[in-house]
C-alpha cells in the first residue's frame, strides 16, 4: 500500500495518471487565471470544448491549446451541449481531427437544460458508435449502477457518474449508488459534476472512486486558484483515507486515553 499519493496512479485507455483530479477549462476570468488554477490543481487531464471559429473565445486571447499545451496535458475533448447521439458523434470526430487523431473523448449526451442530466439511452447509442469508430470513451452518466455497468460492458474506458447536477455544487447526492457503481466496476469510475467544495471531493475518493472531474467548483470560487489547491489536497486526502481504511463508525463513545492508572 502506498504511504502517500505520490506513487499512487490509475490508468485509463493505457495512459497512466498520478493526479486523480481532472479539471474543466471553462468559466474562468481569462486564460491567465485558467492556467494558474489548473497548475494549482495539479491536473494532468483537462477537458476542452470545440466551437465555431470566431466564437466562444476572446480573439485577443491565445488559444486554449497554446495555454495548455499537449506536451503538458492530456486533452479530454467533451461533447457538452449535445442533446442527441448524432451531434455528439460529429463533435468527437471533429475533435479527433482537430487534435491530430487524439481519440480520448468525454461523451455527454444531455437530456434537458434544467438538470443537464444525461440521456442514458442516447448516451449508450453514441458510445457504441464511437467505440466502433475507434474512440476511447470516458462517459458521463447518471448514478444508476445498472446503466454504469452497461456502459462498461459496451467498452467505455471510464464511467463518470454525476454527484449532482452539473454546476450545482450540491455534492454527492447518493453515496450508496456511487459506492455500488465502484464495487461493480472493472474500469475506472470518476465522479463527474456536482462537487462543490473540497470535502465533497474527498468523500468521492473515500467511496473508492478513481478520480473526480470538476470545473465550476474551482472556476466559480471567489479565489479559483486557492480552491484548485484545496481540491488537489481534498482528492489526495480522500484517496489516502480510502487506502488507509477508515475506523468503523460506532454509535457510542470510546475513550482515547487509557482507563488504567487513573489516580482518582
Amino acid at each position: 500500500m502506498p504511504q502517500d499519493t505520490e506513487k499512487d496512479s490509475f490508468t485509463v485507455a493505457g495512459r497512466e495518471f498520478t493526479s486523480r483530479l481532472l479539471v474543466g477549462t471553462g468559466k474562468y476570468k481569462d486564460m491567465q487565471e485558467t492556467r494558474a488554477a489548473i497548475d494549482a490543481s495539479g491536473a494532468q487531464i483537462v477537458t476542452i470544448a470545440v466551437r465555431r471559429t470566431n466564437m466562444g473565445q476572446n480573439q485577443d486571447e491565445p488559444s486554449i491549446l497554446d495555454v495548455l499545451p499537449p506536451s503538458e496535458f492530456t486533452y479530454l475533448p467533451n461533447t457538452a451541449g449535445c442533446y442527441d447521439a448524432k451531434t455528439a458523434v460529429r463533435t468527437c470526430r471533429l475533435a479527433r481531427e482537430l487534435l491530430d487523431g487524439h481519440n480520448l473523448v468525454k461523451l455527454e449526451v444531455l437530456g434537458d437544460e434544467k438538470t443537464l442530466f444525461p440521456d442514458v439511452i442516447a448516451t449508450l447509442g453514441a458510445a457504441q458508435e464511437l467505440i466502433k469508430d475507434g474512440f476511447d470513451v470516458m462517459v458521463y452518466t447518471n448514478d444508476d449502477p445498472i446503466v454504469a455497468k452497461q456502459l462498461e460492458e459496451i467498452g467505455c474506458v471510464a464511467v463518470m457518474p454525476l454527484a449532482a447536477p452539473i454546476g450545482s455544487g450540491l455534492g454527492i447526492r447518493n453515496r450508496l449508488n456511487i459506492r455500488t457503481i465502484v464495487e461493480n466496476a472493472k474500469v475506472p469510475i470518476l465522479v463527474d459534476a456536482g462537487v462543490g467544495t473540497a470535502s465533497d471531493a474527498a468523500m468521492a475518493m473515500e467511496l473508492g472512486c478513481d478520480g473526480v472531474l470538476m470545473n465550476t467548483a474551482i472556476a466559480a470560487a471567489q479565489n479559483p486558484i486557492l480552491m484548485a489547491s484545496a481540491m488537489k489536497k481534498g482528492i489526495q486526502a480522500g484517496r489516502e483515507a480510502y487506502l488507509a481504511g477508515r475506523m468503523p463508525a460506532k454509535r457510542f463513545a470510546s475513550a482515547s486515553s487509557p482507563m488504567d492508572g487513573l489516580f482518582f
Partner: protein
Amino acid sequence: MQIYVNGEEKQIADATDMAILIDLMQLAGQRIAVEVNEELVPRSTFAGHQLHENDRIEIIHAVGGG
C-alpha cells in the same frame, strides 16, 4: 455560388475547393477542423475537396470548457 459557413451565407467563386476557402478566411495553418454537410473533411483532403452550391460548412476550433 452560395455556401454557408458557420451558419452564415457566403458567396464564393465556382470551383473553389476547401483549401482556397480556408485561405480566403485566413485560417490557413490554424488549429481547426472542418465539416461539410455534417461530414468531416480531413485537413489532408482540403486541397481538391470541391465545394458545391448550398454546402453547409462548419469550421471549429478548441475553446475552454468543462
